[in-house]
């Protein structure tokens, strides 16, 4: 066995950790006291793992803006604080964040933002590095789990040293990859003393003018620091090829080129280390900037007057691969692969609503009624997928409510009578409430469906203000949707079970026809929740099945047409929800043991 391998050795010293888990571990070790976030793939596990440490007060906030503000309050009180969000979550949190650059911090504040190159679970591919520049906040970017932990600890220290929040930029592949991490003990920290400082913390024009001067001075100090810190380091290999890269792109480049290139690995990506970049550029023959998404580093290099190659060779879209980098830079092809028969057409396998999902009945009915549906962000976005294809628009968290009202305003009463907004419980709390207030306040008549499945589903079951439990599972007050709607001024509120198809259809018809605002709370828990007991798989009696395919209309992954042209139910998936059974005119579907 080679020296680098030591059986059992790694488990003693190192753990295999998800990037997000390592971020949480870093916060723990750094003595972080408060973590407040709203879930969002690929950032969610940062806060879930933080909640496992009893020393950290972790919470799910109603949205990213509130989470950011809780973190700001926590650091102002003198405790180290962190918030984590996905790239689009930063749009919601941007308002407090931009001004937090002006106030600076008392105790350290780390703001984690996870981009989703390739849009594995997102509605756009925005590059959060632009936020660092526009908000004038320094940004670090780790490239594996060990760095996730180390960089968070450094970010806390730097945050206090420079009196500014620090951004930590992650990506799907760093957040959701596991690699080895050495763990250390937590360093418990006393609260930093709280001082009332109006010129620093009350951002009205007179004070903010003074603070803007501080921000610009701080940026100069940070730029000098970026040149000093060993987070930005040169690794010399062959000097014919030079690569500037950070985060996951560094790993791809290193995998592709090994020591056939030299690297300037950036751990601090804003502000950039100008002197190091110039020195590196001078020491190599051809200089490449390898960065996914936008040419953020490349453009700054060009502004320094350097000759670099970047986006003329590499895409602005999606994720990179080490094979593609090797092909572009070295002109080498990948290894010989197995070759499938090109005549075989391989059907795609897009994500679908799970078997037993309560949303299925809702979208089946919306489609049946031919309604225009302004949708929202969550599992129920999948209502847009074929064959239900029952969603007309999806933009961002909460957008469906405002957009339904906008359609009514422009299109008039006729539009209102055939349009509904569909929004999940957690998304409604996040930013649907304000849209509903707008409908009532401005005398709209829109119909809003709140799909209440008792959990935040898509991101993997997080509790929320409607679920009655906190992040640690403790019972807490539950928002009463009926009272909330009443308080807003919605007089028509109905509650229905989406598995009761006839009732759901009747209620929807009545509510879209009503010339006043209405809310339909469609209530049934997520089929994947552990406490939900399912009746067990159903079975098709092939003698009674007339191959009418009515049961296919609900787009359930557990039911398909067999080779004998009869419907067949996959017992490994079927929960026995009974939706297909209700649609079968021939009573061909029943309990498995019947």
């Amino acid at each position, binding site marked *: 066995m*080679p020296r*680098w391998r030591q*059986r059992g*050795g*790694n*488990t003693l010293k*190192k753990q*295999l950790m998800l990037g997000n888990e390592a971020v949480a571990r870093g916060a723990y070790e750094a003595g972080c006291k408060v973590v407040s976030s709203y879930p969002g*793939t*690929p950032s969610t*596990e940062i806060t879930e793992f933080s909640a496992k440490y009893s020393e950290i007060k972790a919470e799910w906030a109603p949205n990213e803006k509130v989470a950011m503000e809780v973190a700001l309050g926590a650091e102002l009180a003198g405790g180290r604080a962190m918030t984590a969000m996905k790239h689009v979550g930063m749009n919601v949190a941007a308002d407090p964040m931009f001004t937090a650059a002006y106030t600076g911090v008392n105790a350290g504040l780390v703001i984690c933002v996870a981009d989703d190159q390739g849009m*594995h*679970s997102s509605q756009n591919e925005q590059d959060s590095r632009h936020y660092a520049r526009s908000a004038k906040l320094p940004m670090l970017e780790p490239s594996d789990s060990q760095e996730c932990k180390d960089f968070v600890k450094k970010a806390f220290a730097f945050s206090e040293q420079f009196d500014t929040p620090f951004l930590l930029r992650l990506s*799907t*592949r760093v957040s*959701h*990859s*596991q*690699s*080895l991490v050495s763990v250390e003990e937590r360093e418990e920290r006393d609260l930093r003393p709280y001082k009332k400082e109006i010129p620093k913390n009350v951002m009205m024009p007179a004070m903010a003018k003074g603070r803007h001067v501080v921000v610009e001075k701080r940026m100069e100090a940070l730029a000098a620091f970026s040149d000093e810190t060993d987070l930005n380091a040169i690794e010399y290999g062959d000097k014919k090829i030079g690569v500037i890269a950070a985060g*996951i792109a560094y*790993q*791809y480049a*290193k*995998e592709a080129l090994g020591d056939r290139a030299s690297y300037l690995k950036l751990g601090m990506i804003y502000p950039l280390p100008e002197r190091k970049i110039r020195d590196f550029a001078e020491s190599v023959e051809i200089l490449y900037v390898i960065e996914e998404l936008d040419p953020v580093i490349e453009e700054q290099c060009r502004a320094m007057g350097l000759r670099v190659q970047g986006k003329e060779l590499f895409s602005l879209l999606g994720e990179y*691969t*080490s*094979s593609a980098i090797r092909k572009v830079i070295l002109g080498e092809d*990948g*290894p*010989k*692969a*197995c*070759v*499938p*028969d090109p005549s*075989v*057409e*391989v*059907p*795609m*396998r*897009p*994500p*679908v*609503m*799970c078997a037993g999902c309560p949303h299925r009945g809702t979208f089946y009915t919306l489609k049946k009624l031919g309604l225009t549906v302004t949708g929202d962000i969550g599992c129920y976005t*999948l209502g847009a*997928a*074929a064959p239900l294809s029952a969603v007309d628009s999806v933009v961002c968290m909460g957008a469906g409510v405002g957009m339904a009202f906008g359609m009514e305003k422009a299109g008039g009463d006729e539009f209102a009578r055939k349009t509904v907004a569909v929004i999940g419980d957690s998304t409604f709390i996040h930013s649907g409430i304000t849209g509903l207030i707008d409908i009532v306040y401005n005398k709209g008549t829109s119909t809003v469906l709140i799909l209440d499945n008792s959990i935040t589903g*898509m991101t993997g079951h997080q509790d929320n203000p409607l679920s009655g439990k906190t992040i640690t599972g403790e019972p807490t007050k539950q928002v009463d949707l009926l009272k909330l709607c009443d308080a807003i001024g919605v007089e028509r509120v109905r509650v229905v079970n989406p598995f009761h198809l006839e009732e759901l259809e009747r209620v929807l018809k009545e509510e879209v026809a009503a010339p006043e605002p209405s809310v339909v709370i469609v209530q049934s828990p997520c089929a994947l929740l552990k406490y939900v007991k399912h009746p067990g798989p159903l079975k098709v009696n092939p003698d009674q099945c007339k191959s009418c*395919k009515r049961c*296919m209309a609900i*787009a359930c*992954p557990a*039911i*398909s047409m067999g080779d004998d042209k009869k419907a067949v139910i*996959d*017992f*490994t998936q079927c929960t026995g929800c009974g939706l297909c059974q209700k649609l079968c005119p021939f009573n061909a579907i029943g309990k498995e043991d019947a």
Partner: protein
Amino acid sequence: METKNIMIVGVGGQGTLLASRVLGRVLLTEGYDVKISEVHGMSQRGGSVVTYVRYGEKVYSPIIDPGQVDLLLAFEQLEAYRWLPYLKADGRMVVNTQKLSPMPVITGSQKYPAGLPEKLQEACEGVILMDALSLAKEAGNTKTANVVLLGRLAREMEISKEAWVTALREIVAPKFIQVNKKAFALGYQEN
């Protein structure tokens, strides 16, 4: 050593994540540098799911590209065929013969390709087919098909059976350990 690449593919909900956790645990105790990458979120909802596992002396990228996989573990026929171009020309694959229809097949817009096991064998010499679902049933719980497959994968790797069982014990909840140990053994012995 050169970095070894293992890929686990299947359908969201089939338990690929547990298999990768056990595999990661084993590789960690064996003293390798390990990187595992998987995607959470929307694609887990019944979509095609992939886990990349890389190990060796020093691993950089957590991602595997086409033509780089030494060992492919497929939880479903169609997924095996979808990811076939990721397998090295001389790579090996363990394939569960279970079939799950994707939505385009359910809606009738496309057909589930016929004769995939034979097609796989034509394209690749190292194909090992197994009915993991039946073996899982034999073990006492159809949900352990993932561990049956892991057992078969284990036979393709130079790591002791004891190390696997230890890792299994560390990852699986105590009340399910017996059925999972049985499932692993059934997979390991299958010819």
